[in-house]
């Protein structure tokens, strides 16, 4: 199996038999895109919701809005077509439970909202979503069949 590791605030594309992997998603969101016809897949490990709120955008793969756009472009370069693309997303947990109701702490929730909004803007349907909770996730995305395998420490594993 040919694994392509995607680090925090990073993105990558792949074709079968390659598999896209990102480990330890907390409040970050893993966005998996696939053109099922040509089997071109992509994975972005998004950290923050909105590049327009940042003071200095050095890494566009960090933000939901810019990362999804770049991922689509890179997949199109490999022969994918945007209107055929489908998405699966995972992550967006809240790792720390703070007292009080501080919206800054709900970064996971805001990341998920931003990812959904941006996928809607591009007209890409979300086929599966495993988000929220208070636990970390490691994900494997298979461009071969579009399966997303999710592993956790506390709650076992599943395929969506």
């Amino acid at each position, binding site marked *: 199996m040919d694994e392509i590791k995607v*680090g*925090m605030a990073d993105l990558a594309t792949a074709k079968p038999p390659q598999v896209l992997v990102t*480990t*330890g*998603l*907390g*409040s*970050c969101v893993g966005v998996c895109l696939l053109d099922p016809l040509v089997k071109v897949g992509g994975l972005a490990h998004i*950290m*923050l919701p909105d590049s327009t709120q*940042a*003071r*200095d955008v050095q890494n566009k793969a960090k933000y939901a809005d810019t990362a999804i756009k770049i991922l689509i472009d890179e997949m199109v370069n490999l022969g994918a077509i945007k209107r055929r693309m489908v998405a699966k997303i995972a992550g967006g*947990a*809240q*790792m*720390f*439970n*703070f*007292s009080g109701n501080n919206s*800054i*702490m709900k*970064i*996971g929730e805001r990341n998920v909202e931003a990812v959904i909004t941006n996928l809607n803007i591009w007209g890409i349907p979300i086929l599966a979503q495993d988000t929220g909770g*208070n*636990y*970390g*996730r*490691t994900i494997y995305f298979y461009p071969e069949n579009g399966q997303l395998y999710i*592993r956790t*420490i*506390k709650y076992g594993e599943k395929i969506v």
Partner: protein
Amino acid sequence: MDFTKLNDLQKDALKEIGNIGAGNAATALSTMLNKKINMSVPNVFILPFAQVVEIMGGAENLVAGGYLQVTSKAPLSILFVLPEDSIRIFLNILLGKSLEEGQFELDEMSISALKEVTNILAGSYLTALNSFTKLEFTPTVPALALDMAGAILGNVLQLYGEVSDYALVIESVFSEEEKEVKGHFFLLPEPGSLEILLGKLGVGNNG
């Protein structure tokens, strides 16, 4: 500026504060537990965040993380991380109890104990830092998570700011008789805070 541009003098100053803080913390822990706890700081180093996950044994590795934010003229965040083996020994030293292998939830008492240690450590380092800088530091109550290192560190990185991708790491070794635990204490200054801190320490880049 970022952390990679620190010179030896600046690193020494921060390490010295780490040592004084460790001394304060050892005293506080010994008093709280009514037994002799030693603490030392073998190493202080600066790391890009991606490598921070690696020294924790990888992004999927189970760790406990105590996190708090500090308000002051030089705002910062603090994260205290214990790997799985260390959590067991640490809870044994603190409470005389053991976390079994494959046990991923902590009881209230263990959570409180780890939060309290985070609190004591943070307080000790901040007191040391304050005695040199006269900046007044006000820490929040710590929050605690037990999960994948990458998930916890990623969350902290999101919370503490959007600019700096580096962390100051104070390696902390605790020992009680033959039991020894190594943890990592991360000091995460918000953008601009490091300049203020180093300036107050008399080792700023502008004299």
